[in-house]
């Protein structure tokens, strides 16, 4: 990032390539809308590049980028209505083979639909914990809150997510469950 401060585009492009997947998956799960997620991720990177001269190396670029993106997502959602998965059926088609796609798409849309019903901060905490496997400490740092607050957000989010999930989704997801004993062997 110190090289980026001097306007080095190539180094910044490498940083974008390294962190774009993390950013896009979080933004996509949070917003439930692929084009919107792409737009917010782009904006977060542009914002960071424009403010490069004020960058203080107190945290890694990874943490810095994640904090900027998380704040952008929550701010966006606060100012705009959530986009419900029903309205987005065609917008988020994945590039998988056509046979798997329908099944995967159905699961994906059901997950988005449940997530969009959750309050913003609960939703973000749940995504950071289960999509990105961040610790409570890391989530607290990214979301500017205490670990106790993260625990409380996750408790409520887990309970709502589970209550709103239809049985067919639970069955479908169960088919992909890893064997716990295999994990520890």
């Amino acid at each position, binding site marked *: 990032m110190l090289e980026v401060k001097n306007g080095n585009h190539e180094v910044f492009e490498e940083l974008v390539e390294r962190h774009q997947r993390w950013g896009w998956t979080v933004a996509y799960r949070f917003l439930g809308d692929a084009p919107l997620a792409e737009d917010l991720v782009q904006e977060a990177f*542009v914002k960071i590049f424009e403010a490069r001269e004020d960058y203080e190396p107190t945290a890694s670029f990874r943490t810095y980028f994640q904090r900027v993106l998380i704040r952008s997502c929550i701010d966006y959602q606060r100012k705009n209505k959530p986009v419900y998965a029903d309205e987005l059926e065609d917008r988020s088609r994945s590039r998988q083979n056509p046979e798997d796609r329908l099944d995967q798409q159905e699961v*994906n849309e059901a997950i988005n639909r449940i997530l969009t019903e959750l309050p913003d901060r609960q939703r973000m905490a749940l995504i950071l914990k289960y999509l990105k496997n961040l610790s409570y400490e890391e989530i607290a740092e990214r979301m500017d809150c205490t670990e106790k607050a993260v625990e409380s957000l996750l408790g409520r989010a*887990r309970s709502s997510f589970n209550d709103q999930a239809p049985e067919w989704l639970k069955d479908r997801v169960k088919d992909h469950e890893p064997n716990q004993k295999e994990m520890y062997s």
Partner: protein
Amino acid sequence: MNCDQVRERLDAYLEGSLSKDELQQVDRHVDSCVDCTEKLRERRFIADALAEDHVPEPPRELSGSVMQRIRATEESSSSSQQGHPRRSRRSKRWAAAAVFLVGALLGLAFQMAVLQSGKRSSVRPTGVERQSLKVLEIHPTGSLSELVSPNTNRSTGGKP
């Protein structure tokens, strides 16, 4: 382990990061506790539903679009600045502070100038005062009564 201790460890249990001893304790508790079995089932469902497998691939051209946007922003800002080098936010802040300081100094100088001119105007004689001074120049030793009624004593030579 009690229920609270087990539930605190459910995520680590699912991630496969418990020690062998903790794993055995959690397993033993879950086998004999209906509530914790249900909590484990819920937790496993959430972890699996939100796993990356269900998220579509990000667009391939994402980094290219970011760099394109950055170049477009830079071009538009450099053309609007007409050849002036791009100023950082910090240098803009310094410029604003300098402008403020110069303004404050000019204000102070103006105030002092007004005060000085006020002092000067306070010693400058008015029209009436100027006339009185002229009279005093003509009659430097004369008394006030002579000035007010000059004929009184002069006509009579100073005698009643």
